[in-house]
């Protein structure tokens, strides 16, 4: 009796659970359909708007429509859509057409809307607005972008800095670096992409900032950027940092930079670095010597063909190969006749790689 009652109770509970589950699944399916409907109708609306704007904007680019005629078609409530519509053209075009599209933003009410968005409550809106201002090269927004550098959101800071770089505001480099230093989670790629956006104009001020920079992380990045641009006047300062700093990250970036710059004065320091306990320092120093050196370093490089670390041995063989014909001949002899197995092996690999790579 009790067992039967228990079975009926369990059956009832299971049935109710299954029904509840089916109800939840049904509601979820309905919700998905609703979301899809909303998304489709939004896309259709967007497509219709864009198709209308496209025709007019193409005519505007041909000089058949004026800025006022275009903006008359775009109500303020549709500015976000219009911004999105223009974005792909602004990214892909240059020359007269870019200038015309840029004027469509900077000479109209859309520009004041972008400035207002820089202080919007939503960080996504602030960030996109900062990016767009840079995209249209709106130099008149410089002061607003500088204020945006203080934004607590990383994305807004990054896009404001990137836009300042795009408009060539080189005088704001110090503020950008200062703000970067106080960020909680600084990203290496983030600052480098800003510095690269400034182009070679940033080299001279970067060298000036490097001399007074207290932060090791920022020093590494500035050195990296100067090396990227092969800015020869920075060689001496980078060398001073290399000789005075024990920190691995800074040293690595200094060695790479003097190598890229091909700074001749770095030869003695690089020779010292070849004896470093860390194989990463040794291999990079050998790589740099391969770029800067002459046949006077060949004998030393041959010694490193027998280094305990494979990568150091490979770099030494690579450096010998690139330095001179004499170095290449020495490698051929080592590959065939050396009793040092490590040296012979790495040399054979290098020579095969070079033949394959041309």
């Amino acid at each position, binding site marked *: 009796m009790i067992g039967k009652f228990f079975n009926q109770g369990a059956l009832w509970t299971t049935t109710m659970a299954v029904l509840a589950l089916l109800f939840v699944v049904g509601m979820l399916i309905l919700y998905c359909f609703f979301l899809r409907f909303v998304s489709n109708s939004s896309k259709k609306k967007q497509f219709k708007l864009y198709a209308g704007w496209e025709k007019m904007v193409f005519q505007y680019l041909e000089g058949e429509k004026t800025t006022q005629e275009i903006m008359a078609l775009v109500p303020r409530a549709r500015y976000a859509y219009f911004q999105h519509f223009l974005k*792909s053209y602004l990214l*892909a075009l*240059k*020359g007269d*057409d870019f200038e015309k599209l840029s004027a469509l933003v900077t000479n109209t009410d859309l520009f004041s809307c972008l400035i207002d968005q820089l202080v919007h409550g939503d960080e996504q809106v602030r960030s996109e607005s900062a990016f767009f201002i840079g995209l249209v090269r709106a130099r008149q927004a410089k002061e607003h972008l500088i204020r945006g550098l203080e934004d607590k959101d990383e994305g807004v800071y990054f896009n404001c800095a990137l836009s300042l770089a795009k408009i060539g505001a080189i005088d704001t480099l110090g503020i950008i670096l200062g703000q970067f230093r106080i960020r909680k989670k600084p990203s290496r790629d983030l600052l480098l992409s800003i510095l690269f956006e400034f182009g070679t104009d940033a080299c001279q001020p970067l060298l000036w900032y490097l001399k007074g920079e207290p932060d090791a992380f920022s020093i590494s990045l500035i050195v990296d950027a100067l090396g990227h641009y092969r800015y020869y006047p920075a060689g001496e300062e980078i060398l001073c940092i290399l000789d005075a700093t024990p920190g691995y990250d800074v040293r690595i970036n200094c060695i790479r930079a003097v190598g890229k710059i091909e700074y001749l004065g770095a030869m003695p320091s690089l020779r010292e670095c070849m004896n470093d306990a860390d194989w990463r320092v040794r291999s990079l120093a050998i790589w740099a010597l391969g770029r800067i050196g002459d046949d006077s370093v060949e004998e030393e490089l041959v010694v490193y063909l027998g280094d305990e670390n494979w990568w150091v041995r490979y770099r030494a063989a690579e450096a010998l190969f690139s330095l001179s014909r004499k170095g290449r001949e020495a490698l051929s002899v080592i590959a065939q006749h050396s009793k040092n197995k490590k040296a012979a092996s790495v040399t054979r690999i290098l020579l095969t790689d070079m033949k394959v790579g041309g």
Partner: protein
Amino acid sequence: MSKGNKVQKTIIYAEDDLDIARLVKFKLEREEFKVTHFPDGEGVIEAIIETIPDIVLLDVMMPLRDGISILRDIRANPKTVSIPTIILSAKGQESDVVKGLGDGATDYLTKPFAPSELVARVNKAISWQFLQ
């Protein structure tokens, strides 16, 4: 198709950025070209062999088939080998340009680009073709 006495030149244009493709098509059609656009790499080589256009414009990075492999097919086929082909790509490194020209591109234009420059290069490539 012809307008007056002028024979309309035909272009096959493969580009997956549809916004830019429509703008380029608009600009070229204004210059009296007849443009057939492909939104990806599929079917492009077949269309080129079938229609023998006056010039081909290719984006490099496209879904289904990249522009460089299409270019190689154009140059490998005796029927299409002499068709001027311009690469229009976001890949603007020196090595990319050298590779594109090495694979037989008549010209190489990097994005961002000026549409008026593209039209000028198209006209130049076709003129050279006639001179040869």
